[in-house]
């Protein structure tokens, strides 16, 4: 893959990244370094969260659909950032309603001529290049090819290094490697000052250092990071002086605007430039091939296979009695009688010593439904694992790697018994297991444990917390004044988007659509109304009624599968379908760690069955008791599906932490992400 990709970038310099690049959210880190420090100080607190590896995905298919969009948005971005540091109202965006394509951001007439020809010669289009290289770092492959050389050839402190790079970039690619970078990354606007090019190169070199850092232990990394930070500050000063000298007039203002714009999650991201040995590099290179077979998703447990179910039952900790009235169509999914598990599990508390109390607690919370929602469940699980690892001690005559993996495995099966894993949790577990498996044998137990704990923290921080922030920044550019935004159920990231847009002073209205039996839209509604948002609440049956007034649909997702199918709370497909029928764009917001390479066509082959009893009772409808004692009648079944699969053609856009993509680009992202995922 490595070998395939690199030559292609040389041949075709117009390679573009997948998806839209938001104006606001894509501030190159290097750029903020190269501006004077006072500008930096205006940047929002989000900037100081470190985001080391979250942006490594060299997705490089040229999506022709968005060619103009990319150019325009980058243009709009420069225009917008030049205009003011205050949030700029976005007049329009190019979504499903493709009749007109209006550039995002306020249009600065003086710069319109820049947009006239988005595809220019590589040397002239540095601005957009820098923007993109930040967002979807093409630097990953560079990192492995180029940076290896860079790092080894410039083993000095990064301050020096960056200075060198800056000059190299400014010179228009005197270094062969950097010119290659520029050529491959750049795609857009002409007429940008040399200084931007410098920033670009500098930034990319930061990017190059990313992949190496996984190989270092935590302590090493920290030390290097400290040194780096100091060096960086120096470099910043240097970089800040340089552009102001080299470029004139509008450029500093433009920069300042950019910095002030809340963005750039990974400003002081991975600045680790540990020396990379070639052998380590090779390991990295080989991994994808080796893992290809391994990573084909295991066939899931089919619960109509009696033999295996019996086997699983014998091992089970949670007392699971099969529900009696089961829907024929869903024999392959587990359905247990609720209510008996929780007390049973509670009574077993003292007998279950192999299970760590924190894991136990989270399992109980899953079972009782206290924790729900993909992100919340995943975070809770990871924190429980962290606690468990903290208290873990390798038994004598056992290897930490093997024993800990087995332990985690037993915890996971405990969680599965409490509630089937979500796909996001599966990905997180895969990550943790791969981290355990790759622990260097030289580490002592305490070092290994602290390394794992910090890995978990990093995963939560990068893949969930910061990813959400990036998504919010992206998504908020799609909200215009006067919009009516519809959301379904309660998605944490969609809520963050609304609140952030409100913070930016956008004027919009929210329609919360809800459905039985969870009715978690009501909680969302409460929170939004409390913040002063103008809300409309309705149930899913009225979706055709309410869709007339809606201009955007924002949906959360439990997972995005690699055929573009959005696997999400049941009802999402209905909402997306109605929006599609009424030509309203559907924007699905999903963190990239929830992507999965599985494919699914319907909602039946894989799903989760909820408690059927909640269907028979409707809160607030006391006289609605027709379905009491439903289980006594063999002709009557209640079906409480938890998820459904939204076909990809209902989805206009998927907003991830890697940018905004069409659903067709999901498999690309999944493939690239998986590779990166193994490095972390």
């Amino acid at each position, binding site marked *: 893959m490595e070998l395939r990709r690199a030559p292609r970038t040389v041949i075709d310099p117009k390679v573009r990244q997948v998806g839209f690049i938001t104006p606001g959210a894509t501030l190159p880190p290097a750029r903020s370094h190269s501006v004077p420090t006072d500008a930096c100080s205006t940047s929002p607190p989000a900037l100081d969260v470190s985001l080391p590896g979250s942006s490594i995905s060299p997705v490089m298919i040229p999506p022709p659909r968005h060619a103009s969009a990319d150019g325009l948005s980058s243009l709009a971005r420069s225009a917008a950032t030049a205009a003011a540091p205050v949030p700029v109202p976005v007049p329009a965006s190019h979504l499903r309603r493709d009749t007109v394509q209006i550039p995002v951001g306020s249009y600065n007439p003086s710069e319109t001529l820049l947009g006239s020809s988005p595809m220019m010669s590589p040397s002239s289009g540095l601005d957009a290049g820098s923007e993109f290289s930040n967002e979807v770092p093409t630097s990953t492959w560079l990192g492995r090819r180029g940076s290896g050389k860079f790092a080894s050839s410039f083993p000095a402190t990064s301050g020096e290094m960056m200075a060198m790079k800056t000059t190299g970039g400014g010179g228009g690619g005197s270094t062969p490697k950097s010119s290659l970078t520029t050529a491959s990354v750049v795609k857009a606007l002409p007429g940008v000052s040399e200084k931007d090019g410098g920033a670009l190169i500098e930034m990319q070199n930061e990017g190059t250092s990313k992949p190496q850092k996984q190989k270092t232990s935590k302590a090493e990394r920290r030390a290097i990071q400290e040194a780096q930070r100091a060096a960086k500050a120096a470099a910043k000063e240097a970089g800040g002086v340089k552009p102001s000298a080299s470029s004139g007039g509008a450029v500093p203002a433009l920069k300042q605007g950019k910095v002030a714009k809340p963005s750039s999650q990974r400003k002081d991201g991975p600045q680790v430039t540990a020396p990379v040995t070639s052998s380590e590099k090779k390991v990295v290179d080989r991994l994808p091939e080796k893992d290809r077979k391994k990573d084909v998703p295991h066939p899931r447990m089919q619960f109509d296979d009696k033999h295996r179910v019996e086997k699983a039952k014998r091992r089970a900790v949670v007392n699971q009695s099969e529900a009696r009235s089961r829907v024929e169509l869903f024999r392959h999914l587990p359905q247990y009688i609720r209510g008996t598990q929780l007390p049973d599990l509670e009574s077993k508390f003292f007998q279950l010593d192999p299970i760590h109390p924190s894991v136990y607690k989270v399992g109980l919370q899953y079972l009782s439904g206290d924790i729900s929602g993909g992100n919340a469940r995943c975070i809770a699980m990871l924190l429980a694992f962290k606690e468990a690892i903290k208290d873990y001690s390798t038994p004598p005559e056992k290897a930490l790697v093997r024993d800990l993996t087995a332990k985690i495995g037993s915890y996971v099966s405990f969680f599965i018994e409490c509630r089937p894993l979500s796909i996001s949790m599966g990905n997180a577990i895969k990550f943790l297991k791969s981290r355990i498996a790759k622990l260097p044998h030289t580490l002592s137990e305490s070092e290994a444990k602290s390394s794992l704990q910090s890995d978990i923290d990093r995963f939560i921080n990068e893949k969930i917390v910061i990813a959400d922030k990036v998504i919010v920044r992206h998504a908020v550019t799609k909200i215009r004044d006067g919009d009516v935004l519809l959301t379904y159920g309660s998605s944490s990231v969609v809520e963050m988007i609304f609140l952030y847009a409100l913070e930016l002073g956008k004027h919009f209205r929210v329609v919360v659509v809800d459905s039985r039996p969870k009715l978690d839209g009501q909680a969302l509604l409460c929170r939004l*109304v409390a913040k002063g948002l103008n809300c409309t609440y309705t*149930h899913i*049956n*009225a979706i055709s009624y*309410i869709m007339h007034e809606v201009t955007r649909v924002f949906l959360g997702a439990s997972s995005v599968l690699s055929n573009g199918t959005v696997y999400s709370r049941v*009802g999402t497909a209905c909402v997306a379908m109605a929006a599609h029928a009424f030509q309203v764009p559907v924007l699905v917001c999903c963190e990239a760690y929830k992507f999965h390479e599985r494919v699914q066509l319907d909602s039946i082959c894989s799903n989760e069955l909820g408690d059927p009893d909640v269907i028979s009772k409707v809160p607030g409808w006391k006289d609605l008791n*027709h379905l009491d004692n439903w289980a006594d009648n063999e*002709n009557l079944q209640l079906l409480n*599906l938890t998820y459904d699969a939204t076909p990809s053609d209902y989805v206009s856009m998927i907003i991830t932490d890697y940018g905004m993509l069409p659903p067709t680009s999901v498999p690309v992202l999944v493939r690239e992400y998986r590779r990166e995922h193994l490095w972390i």
Partner: protein
Amino acid sequence: MPDVQALVNDFVLKLKRRKIEGSHASARHTAELLRSVISHQRMRQTNQAGALIDAVKAVGEQLIAANPVELAVGNIVRRVLHIIREEDLSSTATAIEGLGLSAGSDDDDEGQYEDRPALSAAALAAAARSTLRAPSLQTLLGDIPGSAVTPQPPSSWGDSEGKSKSADKNLRSRKLKHDVIEAINELIQDIDTCHEQVSEQAVEHIHQNEVILTLGRSRTVKEFLCAAKEKNRSFRVFVAEGAPRYQGHVLAKELVGKGIQTTVITDSAVFAMISRVNMVIVGAHAIMANGGVVAPVGINMVALAAQRHAVPFVVVAGSHKLCPLYPHNSEVLLNDLKSPSDLVDFGEFSDCMDFGSHGGSPLLHVVNPAFDYVPPKLVSLFITDTGGHNPSYMYRLIADYYSADDLVVKQRSTS
């Protein structure tokens, strides 16, 4: 006729307060009310049909205004008007024949006139169809003889012999009222028995091991499914519960009582399940002239999902739900917003309401519409008591039941 006016007012109030809901109930009540209006109508000797039409229109206008969304009321008013016109036409034809002014070509009409009380609903419709080939021309002709006859000497002079013109006329006047009331009785009977006629066709549409999805509860759908079950077809039904009224629970219980395999799903799971469904059968609130359907809320979602998976979308409805109007923006105009308390508990959101006090307009809106409009392109088939029809055919079917003159039930300012 003060008692009639009291009845009308009572019914209007009930409609306004939504005490009477559902097209069957309101159709039946309307027909009964109009029957008593007609029976209490004092017959003048001149232009009786016109007088009856005016009286019915006056009442009908009030009823329709009371709840414009309850389209069945308007349908029945128009049906009654149509009946009056038809009866008047046929009696005029016989009168003309009796006067010797008509040629033998009216044999046809005479036969109708005599047979009518015994006719079944289908035959009535067929008869109406034959007389209505050119509705506007017919009604035109129907009006002219009526007014042409009026200048003739009134029958109250009391000629002793029944063979005389005036006696014939007197007989006719009573006959007209009587016939109209007879026809209305048939209409009421029709409304009550339309389920049977619809469900007779069930076996033609439901095969063994069929999987059927429906949403909410409709009596017609229930009868339809039960009729198929009685013919020993075994099939499976998915019932979406139909928020916010959750009538699907009731339907599920009824179906299970008949021994039908029933699975209750939430409304949100409709899209997930529709890929395994062979046919969608739903009831309707009203069928518009363009073949569109006004149906309980949520049906449009089901129709869209069915279209996506190429599942036949079948609407079963009695003929009293056929509405001669063409919808415009019917999602909004032909809709009813219900109480928010169906959706949210006021207690939970009362603290949120406080936030709404600033700026005049409240922050929280709760939308609870009662109906959905399903455009004709999403409907595969209508099954009414006269058989199965395409959406594109509905306008013609509707023309059989209504006169073009009555589409606007408003009293002319002159009368």
